[in-house]
């Protein structure tokens, strides 16, 4: 584990991307191939199955540190990371170990087959022979969530440098359903045909937000537009008579959307579509709200009743593979023409729909479409350059989302909770309320939108103005008013306020606004009536 821990330190102890990339490149050139493979897996979110519950880990760590469990639990939110908390409370390691990363991972996975006393003995022994970063990394292998300042993009770049292959090709090779047990470094990185795996998706192309007016994009004929849907992005793969559905987070969601199985009846094999998954009732003009889709996302398998209540369709807006050929380098307009041929004439009951193009001659005409977005259950419009290829990742210039301005409401902060990871020990998670007579009714939480400096300022204030503590949550003096921005509002019987917001965040700290002038529950209900 020493090499991997050294890599971790090299990456963690520097803020510069070039230094991180170089450290990773060197590791990909020199580490044992099994370890390289696992490193790619870990950094792309493929972690070994958890062999020990975090409850047991906490108990064993407190016991070995000779502290009461409550003291461990109090320390955890301050540190903001379970693996790190354990690493810090335990006594210094007594010896060292030369066991490498892959062996540790395999041993950890073997724990699933043994009884609890043997698991405990294994973990305690590991804690005794692993010190510092090695111990932290070991804990991370158990608890998962290996986020350490290495994006997939950065890792792909380092791999490209280490192997002399193009980044885009490697990004494609790393997609999909592979696992270190079923492949090898050579098979993953060097094998001739990356398409050999029928389920392998293409890396998604992501857009940037358009700030300001679209006129600066240039002449309108160079651009095409469509709705910016409020669903989840999905890639539908039809190959070898099978179908696969991937999320943007590279999660295979095929089983969650059985209605898409029928796509193989309508579209030929060797077709890959990029589009938006939406709940859409038969005959409806617009899709249902994101709330309806949420019920589906949460389920690994779908009961018949839900399938009937919330049927899902794919609004297809791009074609990445046609007749078995990767056509991502073709211009958007050409891909769109093929897409229209493929999907334009599908019957009404097909689970795939052609996402309509929004015609416009002038930017004003596009602005008119955008202002109708809420009625179309869309978040705004997408603007795409007609001659653009389908790129990998978030690249500026060719694809823009031009969203509606969010709805806003002024609310009072009433609870605060510390964040995790980079935000540990800083109050960043707040609960907000609106007035109902003389009472403050909580209606949403929000975590983002403030600068680090503002979070520091509010943190100092929270510490001085705590009324009561409920575990990690602090009730604070009602005093500060924040403008909360959100994308949508729905009735929700589960919430005390009766509403649920979509994407709430703090858009402004209204230090100019007195407490009494925050909005009311009536204001919120009025918004529900208009936009719900």
């Amino acid at each position, binding site marked *: 584990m020493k090499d991997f821990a050294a890599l971790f330190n090299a990456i963690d102890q520097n803020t510069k991307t070039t230094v991180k990339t170089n450290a990773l490149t060197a590791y990909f050139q020199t580490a044992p191939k099994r370890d390289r493979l696992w490193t790619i897996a870990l950094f792309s979110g493929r972690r070994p199955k958890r062999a020990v519950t975090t409850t047991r880990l906490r108990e064993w760590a407190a016991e070995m*540190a000779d502290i009461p469990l409550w003291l461990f639990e109090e320390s955890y939110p301050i540190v903001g990371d379970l693996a790190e908390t354990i690493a810090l409370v335990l006594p210094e390691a007594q010896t060292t170990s030369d066991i490498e990363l892959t062996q540790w991972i395999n041993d950890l996975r073997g724990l699933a087959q043994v009884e609890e006393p043997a698991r405990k003995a294994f973990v305690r022994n590991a804690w005794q022979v692993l010190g510092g970063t090695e111990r932290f990394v070991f804990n991370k292998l158990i608890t998962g969530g290996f986020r350490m300042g290495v994006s997939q993009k950065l890792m792909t770049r380092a791999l490209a440098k280490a192997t002399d292959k193009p980044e885009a090709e490697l990004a494609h090779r790393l997609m999909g359903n592979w696992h270190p047990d079923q492949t090898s470094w050579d098979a993953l990185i060097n094998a001739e045909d990356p398409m050999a795996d029928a389920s392998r998706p293409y890396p998604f192309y992501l857009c940037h937000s358009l700030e300001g007016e679209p006129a600066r994009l240039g002449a309108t004929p160079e651009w095409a537009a469509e709705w910016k849907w409020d669903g989840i992005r999905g890639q539908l793969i039809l190959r070898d008579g099978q179908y696969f559905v991937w999320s943007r987070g590279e999660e295979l969601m095929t089983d969650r959307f059985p209605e898409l199985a029928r796509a193989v009846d309508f579209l030929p094999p060797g077709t890959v579509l990029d589009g938006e998954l939406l709940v859409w009732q038969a005959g409806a003009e617009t899709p249902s709200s994101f709330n309806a889709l949420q019920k589906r996302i949460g389920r690994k398998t779908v009961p018949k009743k839900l399938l009937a209540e919330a049927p899902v369709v794919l609004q297809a807006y791009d074609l990445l593979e046609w007749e078995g050929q990767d056509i991502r380098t073709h211009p958007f307009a050409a891909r769109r023409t093929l897409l229209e041929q493929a999907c334009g004439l599908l019957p009404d009951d097909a689970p795939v729909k052609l996402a309509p193009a929004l015609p416009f001659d002038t930017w004003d005409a596009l602005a008119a479409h955008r202002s109708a977005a809420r009625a179309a259950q869309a978040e705004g419009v997408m603007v795409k350059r007609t001659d653009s290829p389908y790129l990998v990742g978030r690249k500026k210039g060719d694809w823009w989302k031009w969203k509606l301005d969010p709805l806003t409401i002024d609310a009072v902060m009433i609870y605060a909770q510390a964040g995790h990871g*980079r935000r540990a*020990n800083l109050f960043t998670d707040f609960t907000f309320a609106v007035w109902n007579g003389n009472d403050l009714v909580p209606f949403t939480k929000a975590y983002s939108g403030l600068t680090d400096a503002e979070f520091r300022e509010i943190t100092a204030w929270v510490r001085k103005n705590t009324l009561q503590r409920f575990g990690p949550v602090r009730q604070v003096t009602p005093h500060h008013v924040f403008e909360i921005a959100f994308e949508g509002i729905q009735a929700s019987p589960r919430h005390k306020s009766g509403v649920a917001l979509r994407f709430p965040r703090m858009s402004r700290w209204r230090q100019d606004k007195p407490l009494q002038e925050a909005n009311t529950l009536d204001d919120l209900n009025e918004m529900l009536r208009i936009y719900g």
Partner: protein
Amino acid sequence: MAHTPVLSFTDHGIYCAAGDFYIDPWRPVARALITHGHADHARWGHGSYLATHQALPVIQHRLGEIACQGISYGEVLRIGTAEVSFHPAGHVPGSAQIKVVVEGEIWVASGDYKIEDDGLSDPFEPQKCHHFITESTFGLPVFRWRPQDAVADDLNNWWRKCAGEGKTAFLGAYSLGKAQRLLRMLDPGIGPILTHGAVEATNAVLRGQGIDLPTTVQLTKDTDPKANKGALVLAPPSALGSAWAKRFGPGESAFASGWMQLRGVRRRRAGDRGFVISDHADWPGLLSAIRETGAENIYVTHGYTDVFSRYLTENGWRAEVVPTEFGGEDAEGEAS
């Protein structure tokens, strides 16, 4: 019979009725006994100040014209019916625990303290007492410091590596105490040490009272980066990353603080490196200090007060949290 406690906790600060004085008061009072010169303990506006001879120069430097009196470590002074003495707290040069004895009952207000000998301050001397007032800045078991020598090796290796790569090493640290401690840990053989004005001003005061520090050059707008290849720049954290740093070309930044123990804080401060070095006691240090006083009554001030006092209570002490306006729970500030 209930009697007035030797020390009580008021909205102005820790008060001794027998001697009619305050210890580290946060609002203006007639007579203040000061444990050390950090801004949250030595405040402006008191009628008179009493501090150790070693602490006074910095306090005077910071507060200007004040009515003050110096006292030696261990010297006993009678104020009213109280006997008062100052004892090394090991926090920064001149820092003291203040012992107050009234009719045989002994109280110690420890201000800020650490147990490890930093080679700069007079090392902490435990005082037997009945009532002990302790800080709890790092009163959680996740805070355990490595020995200073080990951290010094890391620090010098980092600087050496930066110098070897043609980079300037920027080190952020609080200008009173921490900066001078780091100066004594650094290996001046690696390269020149440049200091920010705030650090250098404190250096001058401490050198003036006979504290030996390595050669430093104060950074000015005329400092030539090219003439200072492989330099380490020591500055308050707030001054790092400002425009003047850019003149030095490629560089790496680091912070030296106990908070650097936490990866989240380290990442948030956006430095490259964090060196865990604190002038406050770590968890084992707090516990050993309290044990050595033999005190049964512990008053927990700034820091993780609730947690620390609960732990003490469960382990047989009579512990309570007392509210103060000292720096406290602050991972964002510069001290600690």
